[in-house]
């Protein structure tokens, strides 16, 4: 059993370890270790194409995380007041948007956008001589689509576990409904919102499939990596991959720590 588990982990992580390892290789060829060096990092991050892709990715991830956090939280708060059939339908829709494979979201949002463009572009062209097309905003829209569900689930879990009497205590102590939301509800939800923000950022930053469908001419970091791999894996790409990997990992760990700490406080309280 233990050997089996070890093999599985080896199989899973060996390629990743290779990439991380060879990103520090002084030599040019992957299989030829020439000693430790950070040369490929400085080379990668002085490549204007990579920098441009990085900036595009950061903008998309940042906007996605922000919008998902806001819309997801509002969705969770709104769903609090919904009961019965409507609630069941909304719950199902939320779970579905998380479970649907990326490729389905990619294709369906692509079709949706294209249909939309075909419908409105003739009108826009005739009226103001403009048209809308794929761009950063279509990527953000597609990413928000499933990330808001992630935030919604996290915030809902927190809301469900929240002691109703805290809200009543706040009202009892003369806080207006808005004051109660700002001083009690929001602070108590904040760990979940923050964790949702970080998760959305990570998911969006490292997403390839959905982006590939709806990015149009824009190049994000994963798309850049993909297109350059077709010309052969360079240590430069290894360096980029390592940076993406480590920063994603870091964000996930932070999100997890935030969630666990707020859990602990909630448990210690009751």
């Amino acid at each position, binding site marked *: 059993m233990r050997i089996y588990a070890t093999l599985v982990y080896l199989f899973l992580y060996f390629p990743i370890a290779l990439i991380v390892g060879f990103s520090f290789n002084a030599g040019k060829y992957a299989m030829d270790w020439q000693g430790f060096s950070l040369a490929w990092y400085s080379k990668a991050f002085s490549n204007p194409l990579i920098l441009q892709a990085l900036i595009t990715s950061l903008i998309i991830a940042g906007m996605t995380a922000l919008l998902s956090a806001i819309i997801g939280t509002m969705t969770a708060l709104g769903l609090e007041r919904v009961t019965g059939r409507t609630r069941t339908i909304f719950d199902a829709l939320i779970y579905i948007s998380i479970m649907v494979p990326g490729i389905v979201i990619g294709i369906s949002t692509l079709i949706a956008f294209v249909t939309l463009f075909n419908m409105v572009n003739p009108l826009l062209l005739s009226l103001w001589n403009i048209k809308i097309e794929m761009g950063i905003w279509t990527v953000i829209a597609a990413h928000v689509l499933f990330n808001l569900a992630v935030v919604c689930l996290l915030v809902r879990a927190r809301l469900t576990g929240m*002691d109703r*009497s*805290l809200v*009543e*205590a*706040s*009202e*009892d*102590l*003369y*806080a*207006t*409904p808005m*004051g*109660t939301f700002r*001083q*009690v509800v929001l*602070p*108590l939800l904040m760990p979940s919102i923050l964790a949702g923000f970080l998760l959305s950022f990570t998911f969006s930053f490292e997403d390839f499939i959905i982006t590939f469908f709806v990015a149009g001419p824009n190049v994000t970091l994963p798309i850049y990596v993909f297109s350059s791999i077709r010309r052969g894996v360079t240590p430069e790409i290894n360096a980029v991959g390592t940076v993406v990997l480590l920063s994603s990992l870091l964000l996930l760990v932070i999100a997890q720590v935030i969630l666990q700490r707020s859990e602990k*406080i*909630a448990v*210690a*309280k009751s």
Partner: protein
Amino acid sequence: MFEQPVIAFENVTKTFGNVHAVVDNNLAVKAGEFLSILGPSGCGKTTSLRMMAGFEQPSSGAVSIQGQNMTGVPAFLRPVNMVFQHYALFPHLNVADNVSYGLRQRRPKPADAELAKSVADALEMVRLSGYEKRRSYELSGGQQQRVALARALINRPAVLLLDEPLAALDRKLRREMQIELQNLQRNLGITFLLVTHDQEEALSMSDRVCVMREGRIVQIGSPRELYDKPINSYVAGFVGKANFFVGPKADTVLCVRPELLEISATRKTLPQGLADAFDVTVLNRIFLGEHTEYLVRHESLGDFTVLSPRKSEHASGVFDIGDKAAVGWHKSAAQILTTT
């Protein structure tokens, strides 16, 4: 002179679906008094309190506070404060910020120095000086309880509503907090309305007790009145201990308090002038310190309890299980009560 009640219920009814939580209640809470609502679990105590605080609206009837009709007035506009059963301290705020929460909602907002002073005073009042920076989950149950008290009392509410505030504390701490609550109430002159299912607590702390049963108020009066002149067998059984015997008419019982019964070895050795005397067998004995409690059996009256004070044991004697004894009572000790 007619004195206006701080809180008044006029024919207040509250139903949840087909549960009648509170039924047609009239209640006037007097300014400055310590009033307890006493009744078993599920009799509508919490619902009554929540209608005063503004968390529930009556299905019919009206609640007024200081003469103002509170119909449609939300909780945050009502001049009362509540101590919740599980304290409901804000876990994301420290003790000082919890305590100053009510004051910080005022507009214009009080200055920081003023807030700090009020918080220090409030914490001193509940003997928690120096705990300002602690988080609520770092405190013991008793300390959390006192923070909850300080957080409510700092606002000088017209009435402090307490929903079974001591239920979660252990026995010794509960006794301490009972005394502390009484002292606070006397020193501050704030009206206290305490909800409890513990008759001892209600009797020992309150100026008046309101006994509830299945959503209705059965009797309101001073602890002594309730104990000495219960209006029916429900109140007599709930307030203190009571023996019930078959009454002279249908739906009546004869009620005798255990401590008003006399016990002795034989009828002859019983005190003079008793209305009735019976031969009984001792079934059980519990030593209670200043009293001994006997469970005795009479062939037609059935089983009942007798409290024999330690002081008179030299005269009455001590009985073992299985002993024969004689029991009697003075005429004034027996009351005929209705059972409905």
